[in-house]
């Protein structure tokens, strides 16, 4: 289980040719943790990974591995190995020699090399491929070799840079589960870079959501999904209806908000954010947390109850995607609801009046994004 801190990053900044890529990233990674850097391309996640590996020098900040400052150490003096995006297998070596590379560099005795390479090959389920040339392998096999090559030296941290990006969907799903089980088995800290939120949710103990050179939120998958801090996080992980909200009244135990400058809602709970009346913020509502009702009878009077026009009802097989317009003022913000209830399959009529029922705890109050944009 994840325990004490193994790797610390303190206030890393980095710019390339005048463009700031990292604006002061700090985080602490625990032993045996599976941490994912999640974010869109250009958010700084890969640069952070390359700084940990030692391929880039940060402009400022420190990298501490097991308490020791490794910021100025070259890659070959860090107990950290990488699985590269396009595998980077040595084409002039066969599979065995690829995996043995790191051990031979460290002058491990040849019988020990053979033993450990064989172990690594059985770990990634590729026994019998020792003498193959790398050009004779499929993408999934190359992926496994790259993993075996990085793991055979038993690093304290394994870095994975979008390792499944080039594989097809089915293989990717398989490898996700396999990677997770290998990580559990070996108890090695994995830092995994991806832009695929589902991948991040599947494997991670914790997720760091990157945006424009900052970590916007760091937390367990469930926390990230259910308590997103910013509209960027709410939008990037899963789908979210992001609305503007003005604080009408904020007292202990009750918050009054006006959504989209039109619909007033009362939340019977305290607000975590210290905002006074009149201030603007954003709220997010997950589509699956909006219940669409066809009669004006709320299940619970504490719930937020919005009268709306049904814009569209899209049948998606296992679920229905319903688009609602609870606002009168043009252009009007359309809400998306997703439900697996059978009743929506029959009532596929657009244009009718419906009601949206939302539990107060499902209206997520968001902090402004630290970048000022995307919010």
């Amino acid at each position, binding site marked *: 289980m994840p325990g004490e801190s193994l790797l610390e990053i303190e206030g890393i900044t980095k710019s390339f040719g005048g463009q700031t890529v990292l604006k002061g990233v700090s985080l602490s990674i625990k032993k045996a943790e599976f941490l994912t850097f999640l974010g869109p391309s250009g958010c700084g996640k890969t640069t952070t990974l390359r700084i940990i590996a030692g391929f880039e020098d940060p402009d400022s900040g420190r990298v501490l591995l097991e308490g020791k400052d490794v910021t100025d150490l070259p890659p*070959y003096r860090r107990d950290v190995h990488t699985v*590269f995006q396009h595998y980077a297998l040595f084409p002039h070596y066969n599979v065995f020699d690829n995996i043995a590379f790191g051990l031979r*560099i460290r002058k491990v005795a040849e019988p020990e090399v053979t033993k450990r390479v064989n172990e690594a090959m059985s770990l990634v389920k590729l026994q019998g491929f020792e003498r193959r040339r790398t050009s004779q392998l499929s993408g999934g096999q190359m992926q496994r070799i790259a993993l075996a090559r*990085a793991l055979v*030296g038993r690093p304290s941290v394994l870095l994975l840079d979008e390792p499944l990006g080039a594989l097809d969907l089915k293989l990717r799903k398989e490898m996700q589960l396999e990677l997770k089980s290998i990580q559990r088995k070996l108890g090695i800290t994995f830092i995994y870079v991806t832009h695929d939120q589902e991948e991040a949710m599947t494997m991670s103990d914790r997720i760091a959501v990157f945006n424009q050179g900052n970590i916007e939120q760091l937390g367990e998958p469930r926390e990230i999904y259910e308590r997103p801090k910013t509209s960027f996080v709410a939008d990037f992980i899963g789908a979210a209806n992001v609305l503007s909200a003005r604080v009408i009244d904020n007292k202990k135990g009750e918050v009054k908000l006006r959504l989209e400058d039109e619909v007033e809602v009362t939340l019977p709970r305290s607000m975590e954010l210290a905002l006074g009346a009149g201030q603007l913020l954003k709220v997010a509502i997950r589509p699956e947390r909006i219940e669409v009702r066809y009669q004006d009878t709320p299940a619970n009077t504490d719930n937020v109850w919005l009268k709306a026009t049904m814009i569209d009802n899209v049948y998606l097989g296992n679920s229905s995607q319903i688009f609602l317009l609870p606002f009168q003022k043009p252009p009007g913000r359309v809400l998306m609801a997703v439900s697996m209830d059978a009743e929506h399959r029959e009532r596929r009529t657009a244009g009718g009046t419906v009601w949206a029922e939302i539990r107060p705890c499902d209206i997520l109050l968001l902090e402004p994004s630290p970048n000022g944009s995307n919010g």
Partner: protein
Amino acid sequence: MTKNKGLAAFCASIYAFLYLPLAVMFAFSFNDARRNVVWKGFTLKWYGSMFHNAELLSALVTTLELAIAASVFASILGLFASYAMTRHAPFKGRGIYSSMLSVPLMMPEIVMGVGLLSFFVRVHIPLNFWTLACAHAMIALPYTASSIRARLLSLKDSRLEDAAMDLGATEWQAFYKVTLPLAGPAIFSGALLAFTVSFEDFVTSFFIAGIGIVTMPIKIYSMMKFGVTPEINALACCLLLLTVVLLSSQKLLAKKETQS
């Protein structure tokens, strides 16, 4: 259609202009006559006499030695220069240094010849085999550098050296275990080009070959003063054949490399 026929004829005449002289030379190398004017019959004797001409053979040996020395120098320099240009952290004026490497390609060779001659004379370096080899290496450097640089750039993109260092290899270990074996074909193909450039160089050699150094092109030039004999034709055919073999093996290597 008529337009296409016109174009075809135009193309044919251009190719004729390019290759007819070679064909004539090839044909007359088998002409059984002292002079190159009329066809007297088929013979191979010029090829035979060429190989018994001691002066010609010694010129051939000199030229081969020069070409080997020049291509080795140019490959080593080209490898160092390309490594600096592609692997070293960006330094001031890298772009300028990089394009300066290919200046000898654009410079009129007569300017190079005169420049090198006055340089060697001014700094009192006696003209000998090694000064000429250095001069040839300089002319050939753009060829080796561009071939090796292209390969090093593609290797850099594949992150193979990063992978080696990530697994514990120092920069030097990554260089000789990964970079060098994978850049080998590009280095060899650059060396072949350099060899060809040195082998057929006339202008520079003419200026700075010291006393007693006679390269093949210089020898041919001096033989021609007494008229174009079938022996020269035979010799030229052999050189042509060698050039074709060298250049096509270089092309094959380059092609193989882009496929790998």
